[in-house]
């Protein structure tokens, strides 16, 4: 009886603490990057019909079945909506691409994805595609779609990403992208690239996470030598877009992240 009382008390206290901890301005001593803002106002032209929109891929998280309570906000939402809208604003300002200010969610369970030939998958080191979803992604890519994956680090997350990617393309190799590839020159010449860290790494004074010390610019080609999947491993371009407006986040990383992202879109729209 006493033991049960202790357990219940501890549970109640823990619940209260986590609830309070989740409040935005609690404490005031949190790191600056805790201010991830999910409540960005919806832009007034959010419904504009445009050629391009930042299409964020919804996927089931690794180890969390899609219908479980833990899947309510999966890894696919990381950095949303600030990264999406910041980046979209950058694309609008820096290119002639007719871009929507508001992002678009797409999944692999409906055919809506075929209307968005460029998609972005964040934290693909945490995805777990079903066979059916993998088949649809393969079909989408072979028809001419383009996938950019980002924000996964180290050997462990790489292996998780590859578990699903092998379902998508069991017979296609993931290769390191050559510096001479058009994807690094379509608008910006990106011969000198460096690791773009996430905010967590920045706060620890490093640019990597886990054992992902070296940034890997990788991809999967189609039969005609065109990149279908651009894999940004051991880097976090999404964070760089998200925190580009924050003075604590180094400008050089944000600049590179924007340039890489824009090059990837322009490559997808020209190849």
């Amino acid at each position: 009886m006493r033991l049960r009382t202790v357990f219940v008390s501890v549970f109640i206290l823990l619940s209260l603490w986590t609830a309070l901890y989740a409040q935005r301005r609690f404490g005031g001593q949190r790191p600056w990057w805790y201010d991830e803002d999910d409540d960005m106002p919806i832009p007034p032209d959010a419904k504009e019909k445009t050629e391009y929109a930042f299409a964020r891929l919804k996927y089931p998280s690794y180890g969390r079945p899609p219908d479980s309570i833990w899947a309510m906000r999966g890894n696919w939402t990381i950095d949303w909506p600030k990264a999406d809208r910041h980046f979209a604003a950058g694309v609008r300002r820096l290119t002639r691409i007719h871009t929507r200010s508001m992002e678009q969610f797409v999944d692999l369970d409906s055919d809506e994805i075929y209307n968005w030939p460029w998609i972005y998958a964040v934290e693909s080191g945490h995805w777990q595609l079903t066979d059916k979803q993998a088949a649809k992604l393969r079909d989408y890519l072979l028809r001419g779609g383009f996938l950019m994956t980002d924000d996964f680090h180290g050997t462990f997350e790489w292996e998780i990403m590859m578990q699903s990617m092998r379902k998508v393309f069991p017979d296609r190799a993931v290769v390191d992208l050559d510096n001479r590839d058009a994807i690094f020159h379509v608008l910006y010449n990106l011969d000198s690239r460096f690791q773009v860290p996430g905010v967590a790494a920045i706060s620890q004074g490093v640019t990597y996470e886990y054992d992902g010390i070296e940034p890997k610019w990788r991809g999967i080609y189609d039969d005609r030598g065109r990149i279908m999947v651009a894999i940004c491993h051991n880097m976090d371009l999404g964070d760089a877009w998200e925190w580009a407006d924050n003075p604590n986040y180094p400008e050089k990383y944000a600049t590179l992240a924007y340039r890489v992202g824009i090059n990837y879109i322009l490559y997808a729209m020209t190849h």
Partner: protein
Amino acid sequence: MFEFLFKYPLAAFSRGQLLFAGRWPWWLLLLLLVGAALALAWPMLRKRSKTAPRVKPVLIWLLQTAMVAMLLVLLWQPALSVATLRPQQNVVSIVVDDSKSMGLREGGETRMDQLHRTLNQSVISDLQKKFQVRLYRIGARTERVESVDKLAASSPSTRLGDGLKEVVSEAASLPIGAVVLLSDGADNSGGIDLDTTNQIRRYRIPVHTVGFGREKPDHDIELADVQIAQRVLANSRLSAQVTFRQFGYANRRARVTLKDGEKVLASRDVVLKADGVEQSEAVTFNSGNAGVRTLQTTVEPMDGEENRANNTLTRLVTVDGSRPKILYIEGEPKWEYKFIRRAIEQDQGLQLVSMVRTTQNKFYRQGIEKQDELEQGFPATVDELFSFQGVVIGGVEANYFTPTQQELLRQFVDRRGGGVLWLGGRAGLSDGGWGASAVADLLPTVLPNRKNTFQRDPANLELTPAGRDSLICRFDEDPARNVDRWKKLPYLANFEDPGTPKPGAVVLAEFSPGGRGKFPLLVTENYGRGRTGIFATSGSWRWQMSLPVEDQTHEMFWQQLLRWLVTGTTGPVVSSLNKSVFADEQNVPLRVEVRDKNYIPTSDAQVEAHIMSPDGTSDTVPLHADAATVGLYTASWGAVKPGSYVVETVARRGENELGRDAVTFRREDGVAENFGIAQNKELLEKLSQQTGGRYWRPGELGKLANDISYSEAGISIRETRDLWDAPIFFLAALLLRSGEWLLRRKWGVV
């Protein structure tokens, strides 16, 4: 009977003039006629009673007046003025068709047998009593023969026009009174042209035609023509328009097959139309790799067909291995750009150079051969722009192009013969200010005079009747299935109102954005030497993203559209022939158009054709500038041996070569006479009518010698022959008087 009643044959009346030989004036005759009519009417008018019926006296008056009128006319001495040939002083040329078609057997004897029989039945001897008779045979050549027995229906072709010209030209030194042409009318040199007819008419020589052979066969299918483009790009979709007619197989199914050697390229089942009705069917196929294709089109023979040799026609197609260059300029990055590039990358026959404006100040170039190509943007010189065969203008505002570039664009189409295609887009067509631009007349539509015509809304599309026949829109060989495929295409992602098609423009497809009516989607037209088009969307990429990976609809559409854009775009030197197969015809007319590097026609070039014969020998033929057309050079060459020939033409100005071109043709012997075997009565009748002769059936020739005398050609004399003593007048007088007597007897005194 006619000659008995009127004293002279009908031919004398049809070629002569009626006149009065009496010296009294004709107005006196008229006056007396009116006076007589009144005088005869006077007693009737005087005795008129209110009760008596009027019909009887009027009828009697009419008979009396007719009688008096006839007597008065006879007093004025009616006569016939007619020219007649002087006996034994004139020549009658008998021209006999000695071609193989005259050897066709009908009803137990050949046409030539029938001709022999007819001529030997005193026709020639009758003619010889009045005229000097000369006998000619006509076939591929025309020559004089001494006897009918020399004719054996052996000539491989018939050139009636040339033959008649040759015979008639002897009139300059011989008194030719008439020409008698005995033929089935089957001419395979293109018929009798106006020039020949005019030459005959100048000599006033009547041509009497005698038709042999049945006017239509009982059971036959005959190919009339096969039309295929003589030059195409490699691996292009091609259409052969096969025209034929049949007798005796109406509503039966027949198979049209197209072969390259033994390889069947395409075949199609068709339902045969009514007897004698010309039927045209399209058969589409792929041109294959570069080279010369000898294509045989056959309507497969039916059971019991009388002549199977006229079921096949041969055509030559030169498949061009060059890769025309197309420049695609796009004003902003868009999915359409990517997917057009992808579609054309799969086409080995096209080369796409593209430039897309990625930022305000940057273009991204693809498909360029040199690093500095298009570095300064859209071409601004003739050399640069004219190196392309086609231009695609995406969403680029008209004012991006300088006035010089716009003028270049016009010259590119008009003078160079290039193709320009405009696409819909945010800055395309009227939203891009093209309607008010200096090149608005190049566009195949009158653009709307407003902005915001581009909409990012879904739109369904469908083919127009013209689109169903167009190779641009052909996804399936079967026309019905093709229409169905278009209906099932995914909707367009966006569209732009292209306005109203101009006269002469062809709308191939339309789009309908739910409940807002139909708008032209794909419009084409010819402009100057080139062609222009509008594809009023930049949203066809959804066909690629929404259809299965293996589906090739999007790729096929863009490959076919851009091939259409450049297929007619030629180099500065273009050689051509009026046909690709010369069947039993040796004379090959060469025609070369020469332009300088700015594509301006030039007449000061030295042009030579090097002709490679089937046996490997070659000949060089100089071509001469045509006096009437600047830039046109012509020559004529005789291809004696059957087989395939290659003609390579080179044009130079001084030391500089302006360009070169190659064309192929084929010579065949013993083919032409298998076609058009039915008697061409229409041709023979027309010829005789136009020259003052008459069309005769073989059985009517007994009257030929007499009839032929009435001619103004040769040595003739004009005679005035009395008509007053023609039996018809005596009979008429008898009828009028006896008629009056009978009526008076029946009615009593009227």
